[in-house]
């Protein structure tokens, strides 16, 4: 029986390249946020590409390739030294008693004013807990669905919702405290 032509296969390197090429800037950007270091981020994306190419057979056609490759990126990050340190974060949704009650005294108008200041948003995003920032970036920057984010983070969809909610509340509180300091 003749061997199949790899280039004709839907799982060939060529089809991987077609799918992955447009995602390189997004992968690098997200890797920079995860590693907080350009050089490490580039290494991380290289390793992600290498692993994804090897595991491309496990990708189910018809599902979201972006979510799949972001999952590989995250898992690769978690096995790195920086990732291992970052994964020690305790997620508060696992400890409901530690969750703060909503004591948001700002008005929606306050948020609208502060969002005009890009530097303030950058600074607040930097200060956000990495796990919360990650979920927010996947949702707002990468425009992934909750279901896809849940698959990337390997958590239930309810956890994604609660993290997004906490992330936005924390971001608003950071912006509010910056605003108070600037007065």
């Amino acid at each position: 029986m003749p061997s199949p032509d790899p280039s004709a296969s839907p799982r060939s390197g060529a089809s991987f390249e077609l799918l992955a090429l447009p995602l390189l800037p997004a992968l690098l950007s997200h890797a920079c946020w995860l590693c907080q270091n350009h050089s490490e981020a580039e290494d991380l994306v290289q390793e992600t590409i290498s692993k994804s190419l090897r595991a491309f057979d496990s990708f189910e056609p018809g599902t979201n390739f972006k979510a799949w490759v972001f999952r590989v990126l995250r898992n690769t990050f978690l096995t790195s030294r920086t990732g291992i340190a970052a994964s020690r974060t305790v997620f508060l949704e696992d400890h409901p008693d530690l969750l703060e009650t909503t004591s948001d005294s700002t008005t929606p108008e306050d948020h609208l004013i502060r969002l005009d200041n890009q530097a303030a948003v950058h600074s607040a995003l930097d200060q956000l807990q990495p796990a919360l920032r990650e979920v927010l970036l996947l949702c707002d920057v990468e425009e992934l669905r909750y279901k896809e984010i849940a698959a990337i983070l390997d958590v239930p969809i309810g956890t994604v919702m609660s993290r997004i909610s906490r992330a936005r509340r924390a971001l608003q509180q950071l912006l509010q405290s910056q605003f108070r300091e600037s007065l």
Partner: protein
Amino acid sequence: MTESTQTTGHLQPDEINAFVDGELSVPGAETVQQHLNDCHACALRVLAASQLKTAVARAGQRFVSSPETLALLAAQLRQPAPAPSGLNPPPPLAPQHSARIVPTRRASAAFIAAGAAIAAALLIAVSLFTWSQFHQANTLAAELLDQHLAMLSGGAVPQVVSTDRHTVKPWFQGRLPFSFNLPDADALPPDTTLRGADLVFLERQPAALLIFTIHKHEVSVFVTQNAGEFRIAPRAARSGFAIRSATAAELRLTAVSDVNPADLDALVNSLVRVQ
């Protein structure tokens, strides 16, 4: 709407998030929309949440990669995946002895013409190959010099700044697909010091850049795998800089500097000895 919303009369944070993220079902989104038409406070919260989402989307794109980085990664994508064993190309055929043909006079003229054509094609192929080798070596020499000048400019601080070989070598673990040895400080030529190291790419392949000083001259030593495509003359010069290249234990060591070439040879030899 949720039970708690019905109790408080306002949208819950999860509902607002799901609404701005487009995660609600069509009937769910319609219900929220209806509530927003009547509730100014919730409308403002939704507006604030939408603007926060937009601000995060904008702020989240602040890491922009250089075209060089993207080109390197794109090149990595184009590398063929390892072929399954069954798909390996067949080995080149061994030369086979054919039956001797005694040409007739008419046929011999045709053979002479064919022979001339083959010789011409061979000549062109050899010329192209030689030109390609020369061009490749020239391009590589330029790339090496560029990397060395970039290091000299001081704009790029090496990732590892250390004179200790036990600090420099382990830093490359997991960053390079190969390993190499560094000599003790005592085993280096006189007045030669290791200053640090960096990870660079040469011809799209990862390389260790070792930075030394000899007297007061900076030296870049590039350690790469001795792949067939990495071609550079053992001794070369470009724009007043000497380039020395040697192989050792499947590694290629290439040094670039404006130091006395004899000192550069001594450094390369000391590195070759410990591989």
